[in-house]
């Protein structure tokens, strides 16, 4: 697993993908950050910034995940992975953690933005911390969704576009769920709505069930990815 993790991590920066992701992430989130705080000369509308971040994640995270399995499958390099003494879960986790590392490091670098706020005002540190934690977990879940969709196709573009679609749908779904009469469907839709689970973080609550929700969302899609790879052997 470590070998795969290291290779994927290196590969992000041997190809332009890692640089594109980091660059776009920092530029776009920087713009959103300036607009929501510095331009308004206020730290109270920072919540809006995190809504922007969700949308940015929905679009940018698939850039990291699109190639993870589709490229291997297309260039047949999956043959060396699957014929080596490594478990399928090890392969999936190696790739997932590599993407999570690139995402996490960029995220940490990006978080220096918040330090600026403390020079100009007195922002609510707990609120920022909670939001940061929540949004990071959301990113981790999006990564797992992306890796799953990448395992379904050998076309990177399809992997990316479908991941953006699924991510966006999970963001938008909460708008629909409130309008649905049938309580069963509403509950099911709410389960998929990543925004509903984000609310506790914005209220500065460390909601364990929300943390578990995001982690289990990631775990489910990682599990599904291993099943897809396993299933392909039998196809």
């Amino acid at each position: 697993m470590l070998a795969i993790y290291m290779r994927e991590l290196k590969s992000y920066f041997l190809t332009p993908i890692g640089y594109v992701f980091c660059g776009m992430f920092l530029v776009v989130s920087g713009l959103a950050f300036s607009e929501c705080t510095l331009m308004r000369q206020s730290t109270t509308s920072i919540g809006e910034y995190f809504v922007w971040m969700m949308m940015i994640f929905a679009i940018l995270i698939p850039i990291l995940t699109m190639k993870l399995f589709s490229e291997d499958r297309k260039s047949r390099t999956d043959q060396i992975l699957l014929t080596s003494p490594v478990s399928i879960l090890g392969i999936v986790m190696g790739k997932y953690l590599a993407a999570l590392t690139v995402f996490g490091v960029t995220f940490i670098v990006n978080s220096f933005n918040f330090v600026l706020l403390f020079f100009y005002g007195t922002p609510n540190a707990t609120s920022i911390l909670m939001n940061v934690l929540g949004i990071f977990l959301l990113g981790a879940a999006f990564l797992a969704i992306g890796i799953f969709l990448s395992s379904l196709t050998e076309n990177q573009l399809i992997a990316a576009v479908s991941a953006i679609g699924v991510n966006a749908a999970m963001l938008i779904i909460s708008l629909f769920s409130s309008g649905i009469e049938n309580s069963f469907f509403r509950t099911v839709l709410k389960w998929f709505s990543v925004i509903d689970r984000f609310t506790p973080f914005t209220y500065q609550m460390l909601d364990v069930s929300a943390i578990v929700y995001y982690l289990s969302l990631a775990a489910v899609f990682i599990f599904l990815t291993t099943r897809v790879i396993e299933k392909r052997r039998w196809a």
Partner: protein
Amino acid sequence: MIEICDIRKSYGDKRAVDGLTFKVEEGEILGFLGPNGAGKSTTLNIITGYLSADSGVAKIDGTDILTDPIKAKKDIGFLPEIPPLYPEMTVLEYLNFVYDLKGCKLPRKQHLKEICEVVKIWDVGKRLIKNLSKGYKQRVGIAQALIGNPKVLIFDEPTIGLDPRQIIEIRNLIKMLGKEHTIILSTHILPEVQAVCDRIVVINKGRIVANEKTEDLINAVDGSRKLVAKIVGPEEEVLKALRAIGGIKTADVLGKRDTDSISYLIESQDRVDIRKPLFYTLSSKNWPLIGLEGVELSLEDIFMRLVGKEKEKETGKKSKRGGN
């Protein structure tokens, strides 16, 4: 060392492998022959655990690839049809990755250097794989299979796309590796098999049509031999005399190249050596024999005959059934 028992695999309606059973003994080099689409690659992918068979068992050194894949895969070095290379890495980065991937315990630097020297890629170690020529990529693919010194090596068409000098080098390499490893070599080039392999398994449409020692295969297929004789003499009379020799099935003019000599294609009957009677006949007539060479059966010939035999068997069975 390798045991394959009644393996079957279908892709949708298409039967790719249909009940293959064979064994490869320790230290043996097995040639795995068949035309395109015969199921060679599918079989190799099943043996290496990349695909799973619909039914049947594949064992490596007594370990079932399906129930204990990690242990079984440790003993296999596999070069697939398309070498599984990452173009953005350098050769050494890639080999180091494979070393880690396989969890190899041998001393890293020394082991990788040895392998690079054996397949002659040490001088391109720092180049990006995407910039290498096809031949070098193939060798990196072979190097990758050798990492960890596995007991079993499986090569799927290792000489495809190489130039003649490289082909000979790779063949010699495989021969050398055969001293310490058990090897399955898949190919559709007959001379390659003849040069390298101890035993040959021929498959067609997912079934075994022959499983013989290399030297026995050609005889098993057909006892008749073809010769090309270059003879100086009057065409009509030479032909008449040739056809009169006992044991010669057919004799025909192949072509005239020199001014006076003519090449004849002569086919003998099964298991008859006609070279001596041929010589005596010609010398008695004072027609100099200035060239004589055997025509090796090509894979296509062998294959067509093996498949032909299969069909005969099938139709024979059917007619028997009809008789009952």
